[in-house]
């Protein structure tokens, strides 16, 4: 991984995380050994097709997956060196919204329709003892101004249904950032919005990341978004990270056949789509994955070994003839040259 500017310890380190769900047809493994680190101040993009486990990864960090049916089978989630999975419920509750903020894909429904915007932001402050009553309300107003929702005095008294989707997502940002978190997890924050609003929200995330000095985990379908906002990109496929590198590096020289497929089918720069264009074949659904690499059925470069043995995420050099690129890792037995 690439530490940012000399920072040595990762803020968040997901180590070999495996999560499964109990379903009618038995227990299915959804995450199968996810490794991902985010250093302080870094923005990491998590991309992958629908169903690859991006949201489950994010919700695992927040420990918000319903259990049952979900279960963590192995792994650790270290936040500043402390394993979140081992925290008692009360301590974990204190983390949520305070040290780790989260925004979601559904701005229209993520705010409570029966409370004012002001109440919902002030509540985040009050829950973590940052401010109460009038003071909390004033700080909520200041937060609204920072996320570009004004005039705050009027907005504070409004209800979510009075705001557009873009404004609601900004309010969600204000809630997530209320306690000045170290990490913001944004799970497809722009997918449900109009294209012009998408760009505004992304700009806002980029600007606030600098202002608040926080790390960002940005989950998206959209490679264009990643190129714009992220330092580092992790590509997820069938419950594993199959490749990660700096954004520039990944776009210049993808090594995993899946990443290459994504890029080749990606729309031209600046043109955004809701779904990634398709690669032939289907993501094997959880429970239908073989012992080997999840991509084997769709891969043109598959070897006999690929179906039998899962490739570990390992450092890969640059393409033939170029200098090696540190921090570039791929999980592939037969990487793209």
């Amino acid at each position, binding site marked *: 991984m690439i530490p940012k500017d000399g920072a040595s310890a990762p803020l968040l380190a997901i180590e070999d995380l495996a999560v499964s769900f109990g379903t009618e047809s038995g227990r299915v493994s959804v995450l199968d050994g996810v490794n991902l680190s985010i250093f302080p101040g870094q923005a990491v993009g998590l991309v992958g097709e629908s169903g690859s486990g991006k949201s489950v990864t994010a919700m695992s960090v927040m420990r*918000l997956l319903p259990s049952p049916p979900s279960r963590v089978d192995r792994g650790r989630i270290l936040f500043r060196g402390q394993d979140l999975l081992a925290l008692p419920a009360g301590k974990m509750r204190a983390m949520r*919204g*305070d040290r780790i*903020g989260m925004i979601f894909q559904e701005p229209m*429904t*993520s705010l409570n*329709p029966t409370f004012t915007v002001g109440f919902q932001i002030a509540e*985040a402050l009050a*829950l973590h003892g940052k401010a109460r009553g009038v003071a909390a309300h004033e700080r909520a107003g200041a937060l609204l101004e920072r996320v570009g929702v004004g005039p705050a005095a009027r907005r504070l008294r409004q*209800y979510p249904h009075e705001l557009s989707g873009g404004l609601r997502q900004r309010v969600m940002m204000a809630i997530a950032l209320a306690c000045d978190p170290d990490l913001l997890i944004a799970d497809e924050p722009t997918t449900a919005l109009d294209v012009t609003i998408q760009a505004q929200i992304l700009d806002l995330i980029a600007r606030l990341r600098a202002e608040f000095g926080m790390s960002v985990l940005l989950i998206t379908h959209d490679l264009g978004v990643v190129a714009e906002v992220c330092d580092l990109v992790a590509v997820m496929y069938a419950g594993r990270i199959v490749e990660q590198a700096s954004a520039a590096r990944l776009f210049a020289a993808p090594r995993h056949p899946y990443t290459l497929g994504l890029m080749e089918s990606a729309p031209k720069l600046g043109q955004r789509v809701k779904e990634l264009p398709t690669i032939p074949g289907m993501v094997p659904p959880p429970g239908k994955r073989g012992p080997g690499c999840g991509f084997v059925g769709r891969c043109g470069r598959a070897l006999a070994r690929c179906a039998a043995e899962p490739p570990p995420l390992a450092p890969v050099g640059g393409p033939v003839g170029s200098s090696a690129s540190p921090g570039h890792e791929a999980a592939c037995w037969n990487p793209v040259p």
Partner: protein
Amino acid sequence: MLRFLARRLAQSVLVILGVTLVTFLISFAVPADPARMIAGRSASAAEVASVRHQLGLDRPLPVQYLRYLGHLVRGDLGRSYVQRIDVSTVVESRLPATLELMAGAIFFELLLGLPAGAFSAARRGTRADKGTMVLSFIGVSAPQFVVGLLLLYVFGYLLDLFPLGGYGGLANLFLPALTLGIAGGGWYARQSRSSMVDALRQDYVRTARAKGAGEWRVVLLHAGRNAVLPVIAMIGLDIGNFMQGVVVVEAVYGWPGIGQLAWQAIQQLDIPVIMGVTIVAAVAIVLGNLLADIITGALDPRIRVR
């Protein structure tokens, strides 16, 4: 909100007009001749005819209906055949007792139903949830006269904690209100559970958790505030069901309310009283619905502005 209320008010007036028309028509379908009832069994045909003329019963139906409406608007519900006094006087004397009983019953319904439902929803799928739902099912389906007699026997007779029926203070109210409240509470437990389960699935609940809200705050405040809306709307809608229970419970406990009045009037074919009670009940149901709308509107900002 004002326009919304005005529209609902207009709808309510229409509904009540409809009820008056139906009760008016039904009074003709009943095998009892009002003129004969008033003139008395021994009256001659000529006497009956003169009474009929006096009452306007020989006029065309639409005219009779308009006259009837005119009386209603002035608060005149007609005269009881049996007691020979104004129906409005009879109803007025019985109404407070029934209203008191209803207030007590609603208190118990909500006291038993809402927490049970919220608890069940929060513990969805567990044994505690199933147990609570079985209890609520028993509450809903147990015949009210059985529950009433059982409570009367145990708490009134064996333990001697409450009077054995009759009308008076809070002690008299407790058991009849509880009897109605057990049935209603079971029903509310189911309604508030499903309403709460639904609310707990919403995205804003996930947001509340992501903010760091604790489990009970999420359930009671974030989901609860949304879940309670449909349940409150039901209190108003529920008044219709309620009326049936009131008849039974008033009989078991000798509670001198509208239910008893209706029961006696039906047995005696005292049509003006039956019609009067029907209209009062209809007005109560319509008012209940209206009240439900107002409360829902006050709690739900999306309705408030519409």
